[in-house]
């Protein structure tokens, strides 16, 4: 009984860590330029992995191939923001939103054209030993996923709140026009944010590909949708919110599926969002900005 609860909590914690890592990147760009980037999962999460795998098949050693994938994803983030988002920065919100969805569809189809529509396994088997706690198995990769997520969330939090770049990010988030007048190179801040955010997304993608041994051109879609929910739930732009919200959502999914009904598993996740929207519209760590 206890073992079952522990197992479901662990299941939820791992699912939640992936979601959190996804959300940290998503939330950064969401926070700085108020852009819900629905192509987030395609730019980093999916394209990064595919490029890494392609590099591996082209003969690059796997460790280097992963670095290539990460680097490519970060650069792609930069290219996308410059080419697709920059022209509509000051257009109505809806236009930006639609642009991100357009980019998402474009990248998914591009990936299908280049690499085929089928799901594929991750090409390199990874040794994944475990230790037993009661009847619960704790795997090395699970530990890695959780640790990387917490580390990256904390370092991003430090970056945003204790560095010069972070300060300009927050200023840009507060008011882009005023930040510009104060001498902040707003473009550079926005590009930097995207570079970082996409990089984080592709870390999540590569970890997921290795952990689940599966990649597909559509792998980024659902995680992005959930990241959006978690970003709202945790408080827009809040990195601790992304971390706590992600883990919360993962655990709600696992326990809901375990104790109520697995058919509504994603339903529980979105129900959680609904509850937050009604009772805590600014999220866990969000502050109301609209009044300012």
């Amino acid at each position, binding site marked *: 009984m206890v073992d*079952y609860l522990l*197992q*479901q909590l662990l*299941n*939820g914690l*791992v*699912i939640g860590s*992936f979601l959190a890592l996804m959300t940290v990147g998503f939330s950064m760009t969401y926070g700085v330029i108020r852009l819900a980037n629905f192509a987030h999962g395609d730019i980093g999460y999916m394209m990064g992995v595919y490029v890494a795998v392609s590099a591996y098949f082209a003969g690059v050693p796997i460790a280097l191939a992963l670095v290539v994938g990460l680097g490519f994803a970060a650069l792609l983030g930069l290219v996308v923001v410059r080419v697709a988002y920059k022209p509509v920065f000051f257009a109505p919100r809806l236009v930006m939103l639609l642009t991100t969805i357009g980019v998402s569809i474009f990248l998914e189809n591009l990936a*299908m054209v280049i690499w085929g*529509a*089928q*799901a*594929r*396994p991750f090409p390199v*088997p990874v040794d*994944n030993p475990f230790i037993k706690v009661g*009847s619960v*198995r704790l*795997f090395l990769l699970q530990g890695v996923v959780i640790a990387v997520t917490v580390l990256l969330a904390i370092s991003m939090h430090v970056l945003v709140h204790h560095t010069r770049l972070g300060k300009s990010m927050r200023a840009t988030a507060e008011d882009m026009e005023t930040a510009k007048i104060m001498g902040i190179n707003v473009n550079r801040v926005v590009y930097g944010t995207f570079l970082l955010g996409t990089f984080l997304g592709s870390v999540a993608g590569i970890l*997921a590909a290795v952990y*689940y*041994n*599966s990649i*597909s051109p*559509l*792998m980024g*879609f*659902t995680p992005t949708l959930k990241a959006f929910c978690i970003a709202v739930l945790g408080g827009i732009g809040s990195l601790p919110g992304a971390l706590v919200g992600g883990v919360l959502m993962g655990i709600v*999914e*696992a*326990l809901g*599926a*375990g104790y109520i*009904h*697995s*058919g509504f*598993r*994603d339903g529980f996740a979105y129900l959680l969002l609904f509850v937050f929207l009604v009772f805590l519209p600014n999220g866990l760590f969000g502050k109301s900005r609209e009044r300012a």
Partner: protein
Amino acid sequence: MLRKMIAAAAMLLASASFNAASAEDIVLASANPMTGNSAQFGQYKVRAIQLAIEQANAAGGIDGRQIRLVVQDDQGNPKEAALVAQRIVSDDSVMAVLGHWNSSSTLAALPIYDKANIPVVTDSINRKISGASRWSFRVEPTDLQQAEQLSGYIVDTLGYKKIAVIYANNDYGQGLATAFADALSKRGIELAAQDAYLEGATDFTPQISNVQQAEPEILFIIGYYREGALIVQQAQRLGLELPILGSDGFTTQELIKLGGAAVEGVVFPGFFFPNDERFPGSLEFVSAYEAKYGEKPESYGALAYDTTNMIFAAMREKGVSREAIRDYLEQMDGFSGVTGSHKFNADHDTEVRIILLTVKDGEIVLAGKQL
């Protein structure tokens, strides 16, 4: 204005010449998933259909006319399937439709074909398709038939009584899961655990932990190969060591590519396997397919090959028209193909039986224990 007129004239000309070129050809349409999570099945089907067409064309076509295939992609998505069906029925030259593969897609598209009076031959299994349209035929056993046969296999042949099910939460999975639970309860057995997942999901650990809690003797996974391969791998990781039976959505080499060593020994139903020699013509089909595509055909390709040849037989015998094809299929008394003898009952369902396949040393082979 002038530019518009020129454009209009050019379009008219283009469409006129297009029609002139195609009036000679007999057109069939394939409406199957070419992208998305069940893409592999669509590709198998299209390859087999194209092989059958090539062979017929090489032999002089039908009534001296060549046959041509229009390939549409329904993405395995019912919304897209309805759009694809609209596109197909707007083309008067299409004689018959081969598809759709996913039950949800077939259910969404059937009313459209029905209204347009186009014969459709599907290999989806959901029972709601039975007798749904005078124009639809099904070459694969329904979920009710499969549930009956599979529950007999598990209980009588294998001797298990504690059974858990994980199923895809769509028309295919729900249909087969409820049919299976009903078939079991007729034998006085209740499911030990029953869990659902969303198609396209990647993490199945909460469901697997549920199954584990119920301590079943066998796990029946109802779904497609992508999720199947992931569930089997994650089940092993969580220490769930028990025999696994998959549904017919597992029946592809792709399962082995995705699941690797983890899917060794998994059993699933099918209609054909790469070294199948049970029926006349199978060997020739396999070698022609292998020569053209460099790999061996599988269940859905073989079924599609038979379906295409069935439609050719209809047109040869009764003439090239939609009505002729429907009449022939309705009256057909045992069409012998590479997957066995086909005959449609009053509900336009086939009576072909499943065979059980398994993965051994990375190959799909006949399972040791059959029904």
